[in-house]
């Protein structure tokens, strides 16, 4: 067995490492024909306003209408309606998902509350929460962000917008049906793959209808260079459909082998779908709002390919100590630690820019959300790499520590980036500024403080839970009982986060029905700025 284990792990690791070395050599030798000036693509592609702080959330000054070389507006009136519909649906899913999450959280310390019917039981509400926020909120808003960003950075209008609208409708309906199915007890039963495969067909069709227009649009780009955001989106659009199809084929997987597919899929949903949606958006919004290019454009290429190489192989760290071959677990542990490479690359690029322009971070709420989200991406990834190490995992596996970590990634990182993106993009779509700017500030502090309480509670409680579980001299029940105050803390944090989400939804409702000052081209603004 020693031969097989050693060989397989070594081969995969060495191939990944060799690919990375070739990439570094290619960048160093300028084999990739791009340079630091390409980082400025985002300022040139869309309009001629050049650099300078760009925060449309409260500033009424508007850049001139962006058109591509054929004279078509980059965002057509139809695309505008489509994007607003997607963002609204995603926000509704976020509200519903928050409600399910909060109730599920409270049920862990109020076990006799709402126990009268199966749809209200913890096991179902928790699964509905995950599916609503992962596939409803994050995926839908992430795709919406891609439908706006891909045409914007490539200087061309969205192709096949009608097909994209069909895809968005199918996806939205599929998520709703999936949530109802899980709540009435119709489930495929695998974490992250609960939605029944019959309903998955809708999601797969919807996903394809959304991916094709984006890929076709990318082929028609009118700038010479695909900005780094575009790589992440194109990669994600290739990866997620493959993952989704393979993992959902009914009857193909069984037993311990199914567990490897389960976690290959589930971790790649984070690594090769939600992460690129979030990192890609952050790579645009941070330099765009600040008005300066990222620190090192070459480094961003390294970060992207290293993410693809290493993140795709980390899933088996969810099965450490479990009934799958040692070599595959070890492989995932090694690649998890290697994730330091892409994460540091992204961190250097994004944080040097936002931390070097703290005055803009302070002044711009959209940037504040995105920059904090990007920081938490670094934190979540570092934590994840350490958590995959066997000695640490032995304590944290099977505990609430893991739940805190998952939320640091999916909420602290991706959700905050999406909030920032929505605060930036929606005023540009409706041509009005946010009508209730004070709610934006409240939203930020409620989710920042609420999430801090959430994360610290579960991290500390989960760690103590893990230590108690490993201590044979303590009754197992102690490991559960000691978590109660921390679970209550999590509910407090979750309630604050949910309140923040409601404030966001109120602001969104207000701007959509016509509140907020209209934005006008800068040239027409004669009055001096106040």
């Amino acid at each position, binding site marked *: 067995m020693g031969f097989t284990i050693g060989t397989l792990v070594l081969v995969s690791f060495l191939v990944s490492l060799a*690919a990375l070395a070739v990439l570094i050599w290619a960048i160093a030798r300028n084999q990739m024909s791009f340079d630091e000036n390409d980082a400025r693509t985002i300022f040139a592609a869309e309009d001629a306003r050049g650099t300078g702080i760009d925060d449309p959330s409260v500033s009424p000054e508007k850049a001139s209408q962006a058109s591509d070389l054929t004279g078509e507006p980059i965002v057509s009136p139809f695309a505008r309606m489509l994007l607003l519909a997607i963002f609204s649906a995603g926000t509704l899913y976020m509200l519903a998902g928050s409600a399910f999450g909060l109730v599920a959280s409270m049920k862990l310390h109020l*076990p006799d509350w709402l126990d009268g019917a199966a749809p209200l039981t*913890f096991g179902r509400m928790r699964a509905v929460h995950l599916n609503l926020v992962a596939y409803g909120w994050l995926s839908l808003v992430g795709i919406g962000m891609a439908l706006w960003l891909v045409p914007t950075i490539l200087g061309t209008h969205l192709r096949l917008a009608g097909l994209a609208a069909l895809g968005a409708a199918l996806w939205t309906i599929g998520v709703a049906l999936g949530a109802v199915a899980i709540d009435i007890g119709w489930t495929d039963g695998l974490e992250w793959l609960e939605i029944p495969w019959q309903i998955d067909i809708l999601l797969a069709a919807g996903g394809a209808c959304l991916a094709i227009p984006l*890929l076709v649009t990318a082929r028609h780009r009118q700038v010479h260079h695909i900005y780094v955001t575009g790589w992440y989106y194109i990669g994600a659009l290739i*990866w997620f459909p493959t993952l989704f199809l393979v993992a959902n084929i009914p009857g193909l997987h069984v037993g311990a082998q199914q567990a490897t597919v389960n976690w290959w899929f589930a971790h790649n949903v984070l690594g090769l779908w939600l992460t690129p949606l979030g990192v890609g958006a952050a790579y645009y919004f941070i330099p765009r709002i600040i008005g300066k290019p990222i620190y090192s454009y070459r480094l961003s290429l390294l970060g992207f390919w290293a993410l693809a190489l290493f993140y795709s192989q980390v899933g088996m760290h969810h*099965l450490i100590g479990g009934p*799958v*071959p040692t070599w*595959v677990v070890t492989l995932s542990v090694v690649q998890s630690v290697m994730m330091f490479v892409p994460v540091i690359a992204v961190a250097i690029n994004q944080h040097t820019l936002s931390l070097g322009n703290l005055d803009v971070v302070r002044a711009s709420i959209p940037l504040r959300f995105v920059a904090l989200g990007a920081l938490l991406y670094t934190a979540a990834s570092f934590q994840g790499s350490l958590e995959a190490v066997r000695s640490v995992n032995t304590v944290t596996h*099977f505990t609430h520590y893991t739940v805190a970590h998952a939320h640091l990634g999916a909420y602290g990182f991706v959700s905050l980036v999406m909030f920032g993106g929505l605060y930036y993009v929606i005023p540009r779509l409706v041509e009005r500024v946010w009508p209730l700017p004070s709610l934006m500030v409240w939203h930020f502090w409620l989710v920042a403080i609420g999430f801090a309480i959430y994360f610290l509670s579960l991290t500390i409680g989960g760690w103590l839970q893990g230590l108690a579980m490993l201590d044979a001299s303590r009754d197992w029940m102690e490991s559960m009982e000691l978590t109660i105050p921390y679970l209550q803390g999590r509910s407090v944090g979750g309630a604050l986060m949910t309140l923040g989400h409601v404030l966001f939804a109120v602001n969104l409702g207000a701007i959509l029905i016509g509140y907020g000052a209209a934005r006008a081209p800068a040239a027409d603004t004669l009055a001096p700025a106040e």
Partner: protein
Amino acid sequence: MNRFVPLILLSAGILAFATVFLVIVPAAEIRTIAAPEGLAPYTEAELRGRAHYVDLGCVYCHSQQPRSPAQGPDVQRGWGRASTAADYVYDAPHLLGTMRTGPDLLNIGARMPSRAWHLTHLYQPRAISPTSIMPGFPFLFETKPEVEDGDVEVQVPEGMRPDGEVVVARQSALDLVDYLLSLDRTYPADEPTLRDNGFVEGEETSG
């Protein structure tokens, strides 16, 4: 990075590479093994019960994968020997789980073989463990003034059931308990290499 097609091909290639190692090779190793002699396929009732275990989301709090003594005290807690891939040949969907908000259940049938205990515990866990945070599942039971022929009565302390009524199990509760009682992997381990043996106990140097 200005080329669209190479970007797509390389991205797809990297994922395919990962899929070979994380999905295809483990499948080739695991899918060919035979069922252990001591493991029987689930009966019809056990499968119905298993379906309830799945649709009620028991997996979100209970794992079914005892660890090796080198990693944790699972054996000492009575959860059973470290499981191997052979213990799950009849499991679809798999229920390995990721949380131990409750204890591991892979051998709950051997550890707690009383049907009456399970029925009471499912109706109201706090009737047995006062500090438990497991939800009760009263909707798997019905309450009525008197026990009728063929009813399976459930022992529930007064105050935890409606006054003057008895609690009887519905078929769904009986099936679920049948499944729980079937969870017994106390036979000797088959295929001991098909598990994560990456933890080494104390002075031992085997790997």
